[in-house]
């Protein structure tokens, strides 16, 4: 028996007593099994989720609404000739549908349509940025403490629990009034409010995943903890976090609007929807429909996000 008969993949010296007949027999038996189950197509979880989401009409409509609002905010200058900050004092409090002002004018004669469009930039940013930042930071904290069961994990989650012990809006108000008014500070405040719940969702999902055997298998291959977190745990907790975070965008917008309603949000002339609603409060009895315009847009965006979030949850749930 020469060295040439030893298969390349074997450590040298091994298998020299295995006859070729044995090998062929083993091959034949495996080829028989190979013949079974031939029609298998790849079914990626994310592609499946996407397909199911697209089948949900409500979800698609909601996502389209969100997209439309975002586009309208981005391309505001092309959609209106008016300046959102400059008003015509003679045109104050025009009603909805008045000539030249589709949505009327506010108490300083500024065009409402222009203010709604430009304001969408601020309000959508206040909904999106805190959610995305909190999702990233919360995931890092949650996955870390879910993996490390020692002191670090406990301390991190205990701190999160303490922030969680505040009602959301109250914490945002407290942080907001500590930092002072301004859109950036509002975004920071809402982010701080959202990190603990995201961390909790991520931690629970991580705990569910780390006890599974494929994590042990990953440890066995010599992978570092960071590598396991990134390549094995993260893809398995991401769906929970995405579903949860998608439901937070609407809440973030409402909290941000609440803060500017209270005077803690973006600085006064800026057309943030929550601030607009507050400043128009005085004209509720004269031009009620104009007054509710900014509120209507907060509501519309929030509903659209919540519906899209529900559809996403359903699309992910029906797996397996």
């Amino acid at each position: 028996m020469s060295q040439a008969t030893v298969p390349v993949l074997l450590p040298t010296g091994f298998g020299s007593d295995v006859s070729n007949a044995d090998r062929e027999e083993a091959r034949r038996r495996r080829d028989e099994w190979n013949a079974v189950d031939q029609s298998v197509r790849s079914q990626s979880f994310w592609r499946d989720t996407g397909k199911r989401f697209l089948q949900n009409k409500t979800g698609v409509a909601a996502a389209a609404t969100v997209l439309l609002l975002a586009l309208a905010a981005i391309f505001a200058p092309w959609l209106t000739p008016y300046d959102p900050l400059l008003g015509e004092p003679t045109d104050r409090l025009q009603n909805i549908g008045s000539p030249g002002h589709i949505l009327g004018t506010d108490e300083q004669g500024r065009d409402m349509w222009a203010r709604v469009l430009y304001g969408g930039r601020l309000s959508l940013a206040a909904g999106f940025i805190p959610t995305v930042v909190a999702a990233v930071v919360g995931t890092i904290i949650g996955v870390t403490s879910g993996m490390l069961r020692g002191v670090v994990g406990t301390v991190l989650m205990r701190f999160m629990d303490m922030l969680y012990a505040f009602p959301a809006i109250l914490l945002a108000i407290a942080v907001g009034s500590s930092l002072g008014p301004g859109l950036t500070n509002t975004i920071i405040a809402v982010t701080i409010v959202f990190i603990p719940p995201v961390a909790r969702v991520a931690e629970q999902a991580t705990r569910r995943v780390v006890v599974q055997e494929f994590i042990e298998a990953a440890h066995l291959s010599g992978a570092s903890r960071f590598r396991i977190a990134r390549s094995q745990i993260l893809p398995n907790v991401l769906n929970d976090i995405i579903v949860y975070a998608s439901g937070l965008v609407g809440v973030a917008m409402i909290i941000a609007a609440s803060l500017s309603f209270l005077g803690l949000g973006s600085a006064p002339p800026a057309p943030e929807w929550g601030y607009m609603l507050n400043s128009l409060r005085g004209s509720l009895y004269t031009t009620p429909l104009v007054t509710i315009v900014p509120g209507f847009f907060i509501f519309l965006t929030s509903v659209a996000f919540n519906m899209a979030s529900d559809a996403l949850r359903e699309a992910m749930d029906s797996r397996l």
Partner: protein
Amino acid sequence: MLRLIIRRIGLAIPTLIGVSIIVFILMTVVPGSPEAGLVPEDATPEERQAIRDQLGLDDPLPLRYVDWAIAALQGDLGHSQQRRREVADLLTQAWGNTFILALVSAAFGIALGLLLGYLAGTRRGKIADRFISVVSLGGLSIPSFFLAIILLGIFAGGLKWFPSGGASFDDPITALRSLVLPVLSGSLITMAITARVTRAGIVDVFGADFVETLRAKGLTEFEVRRHVLRNALSPVLTTSGVQIGALLGGSVLVETIFRWPGMGLLLYNAISARDLVVVQGATLVIALTFVIINLLVDLLQAAIDPRVRGAIA
């Protein structure tokens, strides 16, 4: 059970301390000098320093926290220069008003939510279910201050059925009338969440094996539903603590719009006036109330549901 109560209270103490530390830090690291409102504009640096020393503003943070916490435990939350009142006095008055509003809102919202959730859950996929789903999704998405403004426009402005603001407890009728609009605008979100949770719970329980067993045992549909409802209630109770918290936090907005003399309005006015001592006191009291309510809900749940009892102990 007694051991359980003690254990659970023991767990709440670090949370309470943590909450107070967060509140303290938030109001201490504020940009600007805290003595600015207390000294005359033309004060000399020496005079400023005297005030700072008197208030202990240059002490290390942990020491200041301990001083503040000890005073707070004795009921001293500081003195509001703007209002010329003790913060504790202001809060005691306001706390009762907020508590009444939050309690009535919670009761109303949870009761209505239970009813709607039950109807939707037992008529899954039918028109009633779809309608209720839309309503609860709307309730979840509408900012309470926006709803408050709409209600004001319709019922106080247009129809003049209810007062547009203030609280009056002179006689039961006026008291009830002044409660209606704030309760409606505050409780819609509670109703929405409760309805969604109840519906999900009922759908779950109806899918469980024991319902088949009950039917097989020959119970009437009414009795089966009673069992289902009782089993679906647990998640509702779990969320109710958070709901009351949301109501307490949301009170800032609702009370501001309806000029309801509670902690929310107090907080709003204090924020506008940059009266940080009051902001600090009100935030602390609302947060502590929330922690204690959650504790009570946990214990209540443990008393009702043996599974939860096991989980806590």
